[in-house]
């Protein structure tokens, strides 16, 4: 289980060497090598994350948190991961402006998702204040 870090580091080193080798002649394919490396590492990590998410969900059910809130949090985490991945790829390719637009889109979507929670908080505050 913990030994996978050696696997991932080795994978990253080999992919870095290949990307540097390809960068002189075919920069676009070097970008693909780095994208696929990132994909493989993220997929390796994602399957580990699944058990943590299940535990969190179980805990939320045990303490009777509304399922809307916990699923919103999961959605926000997923959107953050995906947006981070896309913006890193664009930044690798040298397209900094597209990367920052992807980050902006992620922030806006997260804000839209967070509005119901904010409204619930506001309702609670209004109901407490006489």
């Amino acid at each position, binding site marked *: 289980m913990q030994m996978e870090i050696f696997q991932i580091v080795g994978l990253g080193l080999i992919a870095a060497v290949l990307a540097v080798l390809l960068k002189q002649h*075919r920069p676009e*394919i070097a970008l693909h090598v780095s994208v696929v*490396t990132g*994909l493989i590492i993220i997929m390796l990590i994602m399957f580990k994350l699944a058990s943590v998410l299940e535990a969190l969900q179980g805990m939320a059910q045990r303490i009777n948190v509304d399922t809307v809130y916990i699923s919103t949090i999961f959605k926000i985490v997923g959107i953050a991961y995906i947006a981070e991945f896309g913006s890193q790829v664009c930044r690798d390719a040298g397209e900094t402006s597209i990367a920052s637009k992807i980050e902006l889109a992620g922030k806006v979507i997260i804000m839209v998702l967070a509005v119901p929670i904010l409204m619930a908080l506001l309702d609670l505050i209004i109901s407490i204040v006489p």
Partner: protein
Amino acid sequence: MDVNMIFKIAAVGILVAVLNQVLVRTGREEQAMMVALAGIVIVLMMVIKMISDLFNTVRTMFQLY
């Protein structure tokens, strides 16, 4: 989701680079361009499938529908 994909893509890249050099040296610039384009398309096809796999995994895991 296997590591072989990295080596596959790097092999396509090296092959395309070599073919490109040979074709440019023999004076067939258009064909060299076509080889480069074909390499990009082949690699893109492989990468797009993996990206879609990642998106589906994240979607099911974080309940993003």
